[in-house]
């Protein structure tokens, strides 16, 4: 009987501990609330997507701003655009590394694509009051339809349209939102007549699981960002996109009114130095060397003489 009593006691304690942990979790609630209350006029809130490369750029912005005398509140890894865009629009976040084309499409579902400059101009017009974009960088990190080199060789694939040559069933893999994106499987069918056999969710935003699935041939077509160092290291091919199915996605700082001329100057200097090769190299330090975002940012800013 003693064992049972002890078991009960352990159970009660376990429940109590669990409840405390659960309540503590509730108390810390929405991380953005804290950002709101602590934000004063001197503090700039820098946010980032839940994407390592975006976090590196955000960290670069943050460190450059800190070097310029600004106080920075970091609110990183917030989520996908659907989750953080309302926060930026409501003024909770002041600086956010964005991608021109994807942001434009999020603001205007029927926006027309085009060259990076055309997209940038359209984006400036589409932004709501209180938000602006600073200079865009040469660096682009675009969505792409990516296949393995072997798959591309088998069917002589070069661009997206050539996927019609593929005779085996094509399974697409990626985040579940990919299914409903304007460049998703439906667009492939309607625009190019490419038959997509199925969709497999792999919820790591083109990360290692998606790459492995592609290499293992469990999926044949994946949405991987062009600045991903895995493309080179795993012998993958991002198919050409001559028709701009994907919008050009140049890195651009999306900022609120609280970003003044001197802060804008700092961020523009960063954008001027950032090109795609640099971005791939920065990403590679994270992916291949497992370096932390702040270390990567400090090293690069120092090497460029920006801090």
């Amino acid at each position, binding site marked *: 009987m003693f064992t049972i009593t002890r078991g009960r006691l352990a159970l009660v304690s376990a429940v109590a501990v669990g409840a405390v942990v659960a309540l503590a979790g509730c108390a810390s609630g929405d991380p953005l609330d804290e950002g709101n209350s602590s934000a004063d006029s001197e503090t700039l809130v820098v946010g980032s997507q839940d994407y390592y490369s975006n976090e590196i750029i955000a960290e670069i912005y943050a460190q450059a701003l800190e070097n310029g005398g600004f106080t920075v509140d970091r609110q990183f890894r917030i989520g996908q655009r659907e989750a953080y865009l309302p926060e930026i629009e409501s003024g909770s976040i002041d600086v956010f590394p964005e991608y021109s084309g994807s942001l434009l499409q999020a603001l205007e579902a029927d926006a027309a694509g085009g060259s990076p400059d055309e997209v940038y101009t359209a984006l400036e017009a589409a932004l709501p009051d209180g938000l602006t974009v600073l200079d865009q960088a040469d660096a682009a990190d675009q969505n792409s339809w990516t296949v393995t080199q072997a798959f591309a060789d088998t069917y002589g694939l070069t661009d997206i349209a050539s996927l019609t040559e593929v005779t085996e069933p094509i399974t697409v893999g990626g985040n*579940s939102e990919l299914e*409903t994106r304007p460049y998703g499987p439906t667009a492939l069918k309607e625009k190019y007549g490419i038959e997509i056999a199925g969709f497999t*969710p792999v919820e790591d935003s083109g990360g290692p*699981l998606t790459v492995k699935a592609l290499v293992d041939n469990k999926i044949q077509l994946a949405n991987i960002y062009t600045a991903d160092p895995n493309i080179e290291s795993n012998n993958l091919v991002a198919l050409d996109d001559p028709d701009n199915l994907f919008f050009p996605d140049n890195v651009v700082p999306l900022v609120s009114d609280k970003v003044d001329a001197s802060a804008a100057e700092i961020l523009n200097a960063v954008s001027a130095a950032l090109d795609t090769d640099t971005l791939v190299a920065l990403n590679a330090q994270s992916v291949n060397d497992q370096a932390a975002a702040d270390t990567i940012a400090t090293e690069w800013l120092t090497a460029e003489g920006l801090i």
Partner: protein
Amino acid sequence: MNLFASAIDWILDPANYVGLNAIPLRIGQHLVFSLVTVLIASAIAIPLGYLIGHTGRGRGLAVTTSGGLRAIPTLGLLTLVALWVGIGVVAPYVALTVLAIPPILAGAYTGFEAIDRRTVDAARAVGMSELQIVRKVEVPLGLPLLIGGLRSATLQVIATATLAAYVADLGLGRYLFSGLKTRDYAEMLGGSILVILLALALEGIFALIQRFVVPRGVSGRLDTAPTLRTGSPTAAR
């Protein structure tokens, strides 16, 4: 409340009952996946737990190991296994089995340990072999605690099986992931409600089973006149 109403609307929307993403199909996948996971975990944990409970050996090791297993974050393990075996259902099965083993193991050996030693000694004294003691005394008497372990494992697995959708086109987790990423919170909440209902339904079933597996003579229902006819050691109390 508005969101809640739209989630209910989402659940009732006939459009969500056709095709490859139909609600009944997802519920079925979720249920089959969860039950198979609990079966696999049982096949590993019950014999092991009985061995530990009967011999009294290796208890310390079992407690430490299952404590360690409980501490493993399931999503982390899932990703790790998926990087090794690739995407598909295997990785979720492995990760969720690891999640389900500790409560079942604990249920199995505590079930044996909770039995009054005098009962086991009495069984030995009347000439039962060790195997008979296990089969006729320890297993039936330990059943309520084992079912308790299975119940807790099933609840955890049903709730966590949503993670299977991270690497496979499977289960109710699909609604949660796609709802979250596309800001379709009605779909997300609707999916969550379905998971909760499923968990509650299984809880109810297990609560019933737990009532019926209590051997006559050990339950609080002593007043229902235990029969002495069999002379079984359980009736001696």
